[in-house]
């Protein structure tokens, strides 16, 4: 069986600005696929081409084995799209919205009402879409995207402007959607979101895919030191320096002082922090001294991968 989505050398320009620059990837059936990147990286354009909203300038593209452009009536009932903005009919209640969308797909009212309770909006069924909170509107938008039981779901920054509770709540919903066997493609610029949800992520910038793979593999490939912190004052500076030096086989005088160097030890008066490539040695030693109050071990995150690939300078 061929891949659910297959993209080869996809290109799209707006005038002189290249939005998508020879992008290739495949998404397998049932996969949770993330497209990561800073604003203006080309994520949304890529998604819009996959959805059939924009015509690619070049490259090969198939979604569920079909070409999405021009508007493909055979494909539309099989895909679900949740848009960045909450696109609703004015002044209709949550229940009226989803029933209207359901009828466009010839889906019975019963299923529409069921979807509404699936996303936990039973209590808000009679509330007009404009009066829903950000998280509720986003859940309604997802329910509308799923009302016709699509095989493939596209989501463009679904947790965009939500508070932490609403984000976690939505993640559970997205996991459930994927666990039901649907293929999900989502764009986001939240690293933690991609790391916790996606089977594989593509990191995009300036229209190109810079890195593609499972989040854990990308993080491992980064080779960043692990940061181990304990409460300040549990170890004196000399002991800490010796410990740091022995763990990474470095001369003792090169490890202490400022925390700016990659490897070493630093103390900001609140926490004593080791940055090391061999956390086992330090952890065993700390355990032996029973100096583990406030212990925190931090590995690299997808955010580190992302920042290393796309740079740290601020972009408006």
């Amino acid at each position: 069986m061929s891949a659910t989505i297959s993209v080869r050398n996809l290109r799209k320009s707006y005038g002189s600005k290249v939005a998508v620059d020879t992008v290739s990837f495949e998404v397998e059936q049932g996969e949770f696929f993330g497209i990561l990147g800073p604003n203006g990286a080309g994520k949304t354009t890529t998604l819009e081409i996959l959805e059939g909203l924009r015509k690619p300038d070049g490259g090969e593209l198939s979604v569920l084995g079909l070409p999405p452009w021009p508007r493909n009536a055979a494909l539309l009932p099989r895909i679900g799209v949740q848009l960045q903005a909450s696109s609703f009919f004015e002044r209709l209640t949550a229940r009226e919205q989803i029933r209207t969308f359901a009828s466009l797909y010839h889906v019975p009212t019963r299923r529409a009402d069921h979807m509404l309770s699936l996303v936990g909006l039973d209590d808000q069924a009679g509330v007009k879409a404009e009066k829903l909170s950000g998280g509720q509107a986003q859940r309604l938008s997802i329910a509308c995207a799923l009302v016709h039981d699509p095989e493939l779901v596209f989501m463009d920054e679904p947790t965009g402007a939500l508070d932490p509770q609403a984000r976690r709540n939505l993640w559970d919903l997205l996991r459930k959607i994927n666990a039901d066997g649907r293929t999900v493609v989502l764009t986001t610029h939240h690293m933690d979101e991609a790391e916790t949800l996606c089977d594989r992520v593509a990191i995009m910038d300036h229209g190109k895919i810079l890195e593609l793979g499972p989040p854990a593999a990308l993080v491992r490939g980064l080779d960043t030191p692990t940061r181990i912190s304990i409460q300040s004052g549990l170890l004196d500076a000399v002991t800490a320096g010796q410990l740091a030096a022995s763990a990474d086989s470095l001369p003792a005088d090169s490890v202490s002082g400022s925390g700016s160097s990659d490897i070493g030890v630093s103390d900001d008066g609140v926490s004593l922090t080791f940055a090391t490539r061999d956390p086992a040695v330090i952890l065993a030693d700390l355990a032996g001294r029973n100096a583990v109050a406030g212990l925190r071990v931090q590995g690299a995150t997808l955010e580190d991968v992302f920042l290393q690939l796309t740079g740290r300078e601020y972009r408006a």
Partner: protein
Amino acid sequence: MSRSAFRSLSRAMFLGFVRDRTALFFTLLFPVLFLLLFGSLYKSSSAPRVSVLEVGRVSLLDQAESAAPGQLGKVLAITHTADLQTALADVRKGDYDAAVQQSGRTLVVHYSIADQTTAGIVQTVFTSIVQQADAAAAGGKGGYQLAAAQVEDKSLKPIQYLAPGLLGWAIASGGTFGAAITLVNWRENKLLRRLRLAPVSVGTVVLARVGVTIAVALAELVVFMAIATTPYFGLKLASYWWMAVPIVICGTLAFMAIGLLVGAFARSQQSATAVANLIILPMAFLGGAFIPLDYAPAWIRDVSYAMPLRYLVTAMQDVMARGEGPVSAVPAIAILLCLAAALTIISVRVFRWDSV
């Protein structure tokens, strides 16, 4: 086209409309308030003096004047004319209330019965002139007679032009604003894009919108007729008033096409509203909706031919008030439909699904 999609989209748009208090006020209530206001204002503003055309020489009028100098002028405004036919035409047009002529001892009064008060004054004044002349004659028997003849007045009374005029304006603004603002809002909140991703044809979406707007326009027609035909306003509907229904439908199509074009260019609801106002408001004054063309200056009458609203308003006046036959509305209907078709073709060419 799918019927269930059409039904549910129509329902969604209808609910969206009736729940929008502002739109409801400006589309339905505002024109009705105008009708109530101007209908009542013009109703009481009948001329204090009765205008009379004196055809040839009427010696009885001179007699009455010399009997009580200055008194006659308080009730009658007399204009001299030589030709009876032009005088009758003037009365028929409503420019004068009566034409009076004397043949021998008989005073012949041709008067309009369009306004019952005026008609009553005409009858009373001329009856008393004849009676006084008789009384003044030797022995009280002058043998003077009064012969009264009614003239059918073809001019429109205020309610007859106000009701179709304001209704035309209501339909024009309802159609233009409805189409323009829906298009802009749906493009801005990406609903247009969402609908494009659903297996529903553009035709179904457009037809649903057109259907809802036509239903609202017909509701306005009913409300206007109900108010104008109350005894207070006294509009008498002519026999082919039902031709107003196809005229209203075609007018709605034409003005929705104007709105579609506005919506295709406008980038925000504010600019769509501004541009639609810029089109509709001057048209209401120049197209005979606010100022009846019969009384408008010649330049407005000339300009009005370029205003789509003119055809909507005059066609409705013809069939609802002037008593013209159904065929009289055909040219106006043809013009409105051609305009709708031409503007829709242009709109489709410049149509954008997305704001970028």
